[in-house]
């Protein structure tokens, strides 16, 4: 094996040489052309948080409207647009991209690699994400924001009921971002298969890699369903087709099937990586490896599989045959099992340990609690009779927020507190962090728990106002107050990020004394990530001494690869050395492709077919330039 090979010890000269090779200049060109996964990862995080704020402001407006009966700050039409944008933004432009941000930043560092497998695809997926968001929000400028709810049920979305551009922005905007998510998922999968350091066989991969790889594969199967639905919708609206038109042999239920075949796997796509991050942080603070690694991996994969078999539980009230309903109800109850296995693995890790109560750990404990509450209300709605009673009420709104905020936002904030020192070299403020947690946690429960009650009292979701005397007044006022407290908590988080970035305590390489490879390099890491490509011999390479493991990973000696932008490729299962990979230089090609795609989608939106055709031509030219081998490069192993 390679470890026995006589590698020369790296010197200061090695670092200098690598700096030169991997450096991205801080010029306008450098910023637009960079393919560095760390820069792209942080951009993903910042952009997703911008969408979180936009979605949050929309929620704030809604809660102002609903604080008391008979308020008319917003017209019914404006309210429709606001709640649609809130849901669409949060679920599609925040919840998944934020997790891509962490995975983009962390994966090569977790794997002991110098970059993702497809760095230009990585840059492309970011630009497409950004531009798709700009495309969606440009609907604000013409006052025609999507307005039929984030799941946009036909036939309300058909042209005759919605003649303006609102739902065109929706259909095309979503189609746009699915391209970004698809190429991003492909990049994660290929990186997982090829880019792990020698010795990191699949049973030694960090849990986060398992969860992101699982959801990436899920995305490849789930997203086309959404794409198909949005293509049909656009064709129905603008090419006079009849997919959802029951008068001409179509069916509005086709939309619901396609949407939820995507929609339910999507729920797991936006929570599994967050659970994966929790499975990495909890052991660090408990000072012991995760209990039941194998069980957690298996249940992650099982969740991914069963996630495809439950979509009809969103359609229990649509009049489908009872046999189908029973099947999907049973499947929906089954999916509780793998999630519960993971929760028990965390509890087992916590059990009998002395957890170090730093801010990330507070958020993680809050997350476990909210996960259980959100899970229980999920089990409740998986039961048919219960669902028939409560579907389309605020109970469902409460459930989705416990799931998405509880299992996505709380662990995301824990992860920012945890990895912020790695990204910036500085710690976040602990005191402000505790305030941040308690304000968010109390505000959240104050805001969202009463929604269970308003739901049981029969308050339908999505009504823009309500009359007094229905017993909903007090509970709505509490909800609104809680929502604002929660917003203050989120604000404290942003204040902490901005302040700590300038003036936080210096972190050092491994401030949490954690066990995985990203903590073996400096904070922030050098542009080339690793001075030597490590060789991995256990799941916890930095804890081998402490755990008394017989294996010894090597993080200080190994190949340095100083001939050019190079890293190692290994075999998919055992991570044995396969070849040296030549990595691409910075390039404007991803940005050009994304810009051409933006033009294409505006062409479609405005039905300026010539413009769309021109954009496709542009895409064709740029793709050919991309794939053409560069004159100064030797023909690579792959080319």
């Amino acid at each position, binding site marked *: 094996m390679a470890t026995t090979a006589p590698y*020369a010890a790296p010197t200061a000269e090695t670092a200098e040489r690598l700096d030169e090779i991997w450096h991205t200049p801080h010029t306008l060109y450098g910023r637009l052309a960079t393919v560095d996964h760390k820069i792209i990862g942080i951009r993903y995080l910042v952009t997703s948080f911008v969408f979180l704020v936009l979605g949050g402001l929309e929620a704030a407006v809604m809660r102002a409207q609903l604080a008391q009966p008979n308020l008319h700050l917003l017209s019914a039409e404006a309210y429709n647009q606001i709640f649609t944008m809130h849901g669409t933004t949060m679920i599609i432009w925040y919840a998944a991209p934020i997790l891509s941000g962490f995975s983009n930043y962390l994966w090569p560092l977790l794997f002991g690699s110098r970059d993702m497998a497809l760095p230009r*695809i990585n840059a492309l997926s970011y630009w497409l994400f950004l531009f798709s968001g700009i495309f969606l929000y440009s609907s604000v400028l013409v006052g025609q924001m999507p307005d039929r709810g984030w799941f946009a049920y036909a036939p309300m979305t058909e042209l005759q009921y919605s003649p303006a551009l609102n739902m065109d922005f929706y259909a095309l905007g979503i189609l746009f971002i699915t391209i970004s998510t698809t190429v991003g998922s492909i990049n994660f999968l290929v990186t997982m298969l090829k880019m792990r350091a020698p010795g990191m066989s699949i049973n030694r991969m960090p849990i986060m890699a398992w969860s992101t790889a699982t959801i990436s594969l899920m995305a490849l199967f789930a997203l086309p369903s959404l794409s198909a639905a949005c293509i049909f919708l656009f064709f129905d609206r603008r090419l006079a087709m*009849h*997919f959802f*038109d029951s008068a001409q*042999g*179509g069916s509005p239920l086709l939309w619901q*099937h396609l949407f939820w075949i995507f929609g339910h796997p999507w729920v797991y796509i936006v929570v599994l990586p967050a659970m994966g991050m929790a499975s990495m942080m909890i052991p660090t603070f408990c000072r012991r490896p995760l209990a039941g690694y194998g069980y957690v991996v298996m249940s992650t994969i099982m969740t991914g599989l069963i996630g495809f078999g439950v979509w009809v539980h969103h359609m229990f009230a649509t009049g489908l045959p009872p046999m189908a309903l029973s099947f999907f109800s049973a499947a929906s109850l089954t999916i509780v099992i793998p999630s519960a296995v993971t929760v028990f693995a965390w509890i087992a890790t916590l059990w009998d340990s002395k957890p170090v109560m730093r801010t990330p750990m507070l958020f993680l404990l809050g997350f476990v609690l909210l996960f259980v509450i959100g899970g229980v209300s999920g089990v409740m709605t998986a039961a048919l009779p219960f669902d028939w009673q409560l579907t389309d009420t605020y109970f469902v709104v409460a459930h989705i927020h416990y799931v998405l905020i509880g299992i996505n936002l709380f662990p995301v904030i824990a992860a920012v507190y945890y990895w912020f020192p790695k990204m910036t070299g500085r710690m976040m403020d602990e005191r402000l962090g505790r305030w941040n947690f308690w304000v968010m946690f109390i505000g959240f429960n104050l805001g969202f728990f009463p929604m269970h009650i308003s739901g049981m009292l029969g308050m339908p979701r999505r009504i823009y106002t309500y009359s007094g005397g229905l017993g909903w007044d007090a509970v709505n006022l509490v909800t609104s107050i809680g929502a604002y407290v929660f917003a203050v908590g989120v604000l404290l988080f942003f204040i902490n990020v901005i302040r700590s970035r300038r003036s936080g305590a210096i972190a050092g390489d491994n401030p949490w004394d954690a066990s995985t490879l990203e903590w073996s390099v400096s904070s922030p890491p050098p542009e080339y990530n690793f001075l030597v490509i490590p060789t991995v011999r256990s799941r916890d390479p930095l804890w081998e001494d402490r755990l008394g493991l017989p294996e010894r990973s090597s993080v200080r000696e190994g190949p340095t*690869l100083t001939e050019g932008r190079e890293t190692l490729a290994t075999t998919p299962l055992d991570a044995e050395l396969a070849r040296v990979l030549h990595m691409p230089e910075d390039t404007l090609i991803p940005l050009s492709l994304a810009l051409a795609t933006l033009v294409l989608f505006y062409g479609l939106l405005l039905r300026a077919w010539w413009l769309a055709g021109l954009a496709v031509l542009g895409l064709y030219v740029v793709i050919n330039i991309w794939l053409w081998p560069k004159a100064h490069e030797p023909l690579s192993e792959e080319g």
Partner: protein
Amino acid sequence: MSLDSRHLLPPSTREHPPGWWAMVCLIITEGALFAYFLFSYFYLASMAPQWPPNHLPELKLAGPNTVILIASSFVMWWAERGIKAGQQMRLRIGLLITALMGIVFLVIQSREYAGLKFTASSHAYGSLFITITAFHFAHVVVGVLMMLTTQVRAWLGHFTERHHLAVTNTALYWHFVDIVWIFVFASLYLSPRIWGHT
């Protein structure tokens, strides 16, 4: 740093490079897209009182066209085998014939469209028929364009026995496009002959 570490690594030519895996992933997700299209077709078919609404799609053009497309996959396979053995001419000729067969498919398919008695806006069946075949049509166009680029590179001598990922990926994509057509053909042209109801 005089030590060139790459010489220490055991060369492994059997291992697929990242670009190959990326193409496989792309094919998976594209295949899923067509699967959802066909799901939609059968879903609406199952609820229709009469399917297809008017008469069965004719096999006069589509039948031979299917044979041409499937045959082109074998030519592509022959071409790829050529470069694996280092035979440049075989690659060039094979790619050229495959691309021509693809173009013939497109021409015949266009005539099929010209002869249809319905449009995409006649009824849901028309929407499905046109959308599904048009998406496949677009995939054939992409495949032909890929072969065009690969053809030029083949003449420039870019490929060798060991270095020909672009050829492998073009071939993978082309086989995928052909296999999808088998499913599309079986669903749109053959299945109504078996399960169609009036």
